[in-house]
């Protein structure tokens, strides 16, 4: 008797994204809008895009205003610093300006732009060379991460309650590659196939990295909880 059903919509949160980016509500990008397929862009968006590609500065300004929130928020989530996020956003849109002519429309524009912005962010993270592992490293299966590691006494479960700030801190402490996947999928609502295209990795890789990221977060939250319980 399945008396304690476990909810299982862990994977795609299809109602939880604003991949069109454009129509994102001003305060939160995560309007629970009906799933807008990346493959069917708004025709007026396509017009703006075509004009921007042809060098129309006004059209480029519109593109900026359509996508600035998502790109800026992505940068901010990745670096956690406003000044730096502004610089990265600027660099991303400068790159966009340089490269927009090369966009061929074989992926959604917002996916393509995300990919571009991600590369800008990763370059910056590499430059800083902090305790971050590179995306390539994050994509390598880490040997110490056997499945057994996630065992734990049931009494240490998170019990459905997570302190938001604690989770944000734990996300900020993730290695960059894991943080990126987690943010793209669980926070921003991208699908694995889109993430795979953005990061040049396989879909299976995206799934397993996301899983590892969540496991790491769970570990962090549990050790948090343990410490709190002790003090």
């Amino acid at each position, binding site marked *: 008797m399945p008396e304690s*059903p*476990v909810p299982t919509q*862990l*994977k795609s949160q299809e109602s939880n994204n604003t991949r069109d980016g454009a129509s994102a509500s001003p305060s939160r990008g995560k309007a629970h809008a009906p799933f807008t397929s990346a493959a069917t862009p708004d025709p007026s968006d396509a017009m703006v895009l075509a004009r921007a590609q042809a060098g129309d500065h006004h059209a480029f300004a519109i593109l900026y205003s359509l996508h600035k929130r998502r790109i800026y928020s992505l940068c901010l989530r990745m670096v956690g610093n406003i000044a730096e996020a502004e610089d990265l956003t600027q660099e991303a849109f*400068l790159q966009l300006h340089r490269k927009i002519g090369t966009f061929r429309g074989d992926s959604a524009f917002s996916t393509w732009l995300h990919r571009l912005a991600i590369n800008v962010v990763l370059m910056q993270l590499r430059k800083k060379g902090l305790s971050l592992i590179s995306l390539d490293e994050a994509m390598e299966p880490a040997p110490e991460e056997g499945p*057994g590691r*996630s065992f734990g006494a049931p009494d240490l479960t998170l019990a459905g309650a997570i302190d938001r700030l604690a989770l944000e801190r734990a996300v900020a402490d993730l290695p960059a590659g894991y943080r990126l996947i987690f943010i793209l999928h669980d926070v921003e609502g991208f699908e694995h196939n889109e993430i795979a295209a953005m990061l040049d990795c396989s879909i299976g890789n995206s*799934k*397993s990295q996301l*899983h590892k990221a969540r496991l790491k977060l769970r570990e962090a939250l549990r050790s948090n909880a343990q410490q709190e319980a002790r003090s």
Partner: protein
Amino acid sequence: MSNKYRKMSCEEFQAQLAEMIGSGENVSENEHIRSCELCRALLADLQTIADAARDLFPVEEPPEKLWEKIETAIKSESTNGTKGSSQHAPHPPKVNL
């Protein structure tokens, strides 16, 4: 040899979990999870984390002045031409015949 005749261990189950979750399988219906409290707790925790993620790091608006900075940078790039870009010749060079 079908798995049917033998119970999956936690380790085996968890090794498959990333793929199961990622492909949208209804993991809570899985035979192992129905009989294993540990893995059920793990799954519930992962679900809690994924659910909580939606409310993390609200989408932020960049400052107004950022566009001005970008515009300025674009203009200086298109007048200087070069800056890190290969197509630094917006106008084709004149050919003197």
